[in-house]
């Protein structure tokens, strides 16, 4: 015990004596140079010579620090490093490549300080040079990974946009005797595919279907269900005479596919009778559309039904909605009523007020509601917004 602690103490003193200032300098674990303010090398340590392969006599009084850099490094030195050093007094962790005596490159990290004399005039620059070969390789790998990540993000974004465009038809078809308009705004900056959808299609002459729906969730999986729902409804509408029949079929498909997502749908079948139309509406868990009658009164229509994809044989009542000339029916998703500002919901009250205003076209109604909701949440929707307006011309 005593003897081993005595040995340790001896070793301590021996190392202390051996490590004088000159050795501290020459054998420092980094290259070390001193230069005049314009860069002429005036002193250099052994570690730097070992790293670069130069003899001391080749450098001191003969070369500038900048001479030891690659062409590109010289530009960087003169445009960034030297100005920074001159104005700031220090430069830290600058990545530069030095050219060794044999022409090979030494990737280095450089720290430097500019010493000033009593009159504040630059006197000497001290530079520490660290071999950064491995680190640089690691950084290159990082850069490559960053490039790959950016490319992949751009790819995903374009896929999402393409997918979104297939789910939302740009403009609904023109229907003789009916004025129809629709709008869609994705949540946030629109980079993620939403679950809201709408569709307008013809069954036979003077017989049309308007669908609006909302698949729970976002992203590619929600989009796949959205596509499934939309196409299932198109197919089911042909074989099933009532909206509830079509929604029941969709419910079966969702359960059969064992898809862990539910959705809400408003299915409106429209039949023309002269100047008027009769709607048959079925709501699979979807918010009740608002009907503005020619006099200006606004009421929620349709009987609430069960959302789809949860239980077998959900209650799905059909309800007739007469649409006389001048009537306006606004179908929407919960992105409208559940828009928030300072924690407060936009709500059905505000939507009713927006629908009550007298507009001459379906497009004007849609635009007015959309503008109002967007303004309410300062132009940044938290959730997707889908709107379809059906208006019977007077």
């Amino acid at each position: 015990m005593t003897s081993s602690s005595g040995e340790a103490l001896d070793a301590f003193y021996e190392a202390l004596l051996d490590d004088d200032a000159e050795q501290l300098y020459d054998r420092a674990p980094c290259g070390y140079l001193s230069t005049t303010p314009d860069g002429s090398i005036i002193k250099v340590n052994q570690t730097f010579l070992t790293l670069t392969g130069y003899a001391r006599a080749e450098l001191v009084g003969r070369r500038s620090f900048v001479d030891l850099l690659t062409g590109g490094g010289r530009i960087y030195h003169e445009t960034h490093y030297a100005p920074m050093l001159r104005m700031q007094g220090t430069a830290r962790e600058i990545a530069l490549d030095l050219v060794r005596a044999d022409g090979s490159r030494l990737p280095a990290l450089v720290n430097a300080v500019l010493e000033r004399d009593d009159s504040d005039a630059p006197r000497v620059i001290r530079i520490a040079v660290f071999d950064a070969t491995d680190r640089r390789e690691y950084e290159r790998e990082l850069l490559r990974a960053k490039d790959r990540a950016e490319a992949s993000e751009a790819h995903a974004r374009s896929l999402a946009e393409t997918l979104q465009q297939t789910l939302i038809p740009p403009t609904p078809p023109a229907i003789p005797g009916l004025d129809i308009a629709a709008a869609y705004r994705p949540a946030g900056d629109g980079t993620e595919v939403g679950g809201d959808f709408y569709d307008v299609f013809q069954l036979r002459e003077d017989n049309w279907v308007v669908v609006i729906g909302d698949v729970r969730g976002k992203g590619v999986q929600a989009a796949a269900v959205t596509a499934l729902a939309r196409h299932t409804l198109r197919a089911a509408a042909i074989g099933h005479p009532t909206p509830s029949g079509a929604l029941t079929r969709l419910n079966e498909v969702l359960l059969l596919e064992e898809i862990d997502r539910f959705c809400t749908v408003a299915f409106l079948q429209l039949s023309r009778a002269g100047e008027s139309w009769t709607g048959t509406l079925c709501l699979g868990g979807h918010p009740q559309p608002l009907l503005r009658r020619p006099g200006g009164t606004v009421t929620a229509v349709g009987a609430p039904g069960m959302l789809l994809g949860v239980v077998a044989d959900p209650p799905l009542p059909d309800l007739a909605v007469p649409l006389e000339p001048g009537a306006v029916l606004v179908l929407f998703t919960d992105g409208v009523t559940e828009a928030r500002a300072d924690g407060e919901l936009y709500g059905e009250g505000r939507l009713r007020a927006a629908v009550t205003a007298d507009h001459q076209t379906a497009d004007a109604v849609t635009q007015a509601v959309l503008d109002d909701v967007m303004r309410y949440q300062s132009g940044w929707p938290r959730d997707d917004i889908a709107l379809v307006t059906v208006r019977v011309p007077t």
Partner: protein
Amino acid sequence: MDVLARNNVTLAGPPTAQPMVFAHGFGCDQNMWRFVAPRFSSSHRVVLFDHVGAGQSDLSAWDPERYSSLTGYAQDVVEICQALDLHDVVFVGHSVAAMIGVLAAAQAPDLFARLVLVSPSPRYIDDDGYVGGFSHRDVEEMLDSLDSNYLGWSTAMAPAIMGNDERPELGEELTASFCRTDPDIARQFARVTFLSDNRRDLATVTTPTLVLQCSNDVIAPTSVGEYVAATMPNATLRLLDATGHCPNLSAPQATTAAIREFIGADISAGA
């Protein structure tokens, strides 16, 4: 578009005095003139600005198309002069901004009374019989240098670059954001700068011009300064007792004296 906000224009000196517009080069911002410009603010209207993408300029004004050549930057200089209703302008440009000044004077010759080109180069890359000092490989390496050096701090710096409306005191600024720019923009500016070739534009500008040349300038060698002075119809070369590429930092007194002598001298047209 508010041109003055876009380019972070700062003004000093008597409003009615002859204007001097100082333009910074690649790699920094208007701070490059901090040891020189104040020396003119008692006698001249001193106009400083940051190129779009540099310093405290409005990054949202960055347009890859407009800034795909130095002409876009020159257009900015002309727009700044017009927005301030400047006439009889002394333009002082360092490094690539020297060529930006030449292009601005070619676009709007009537605006400018004098050009001072500090360490100019109309082409950095060697060409048949012309020595610019660099090869294409050097420029590619320099872009790599930019990448490696941005890697460490680009993300950390982004908030300071993006959301800094008020100009902090210089001391704070130096520790936090000295001469730092958006990496993508800096990369493009570097490309435009070091791949540009404006040798043909030199002869078209007859504005009285001073070329300030340092010794041992690795970016713009003395032979290039001589080429600029010899090619411009109305230019004189002045060798500064300074080394390196940035006499505005390393020898501000000599730089100031040379500029003062030039703009104080009576140069009649055609001299």
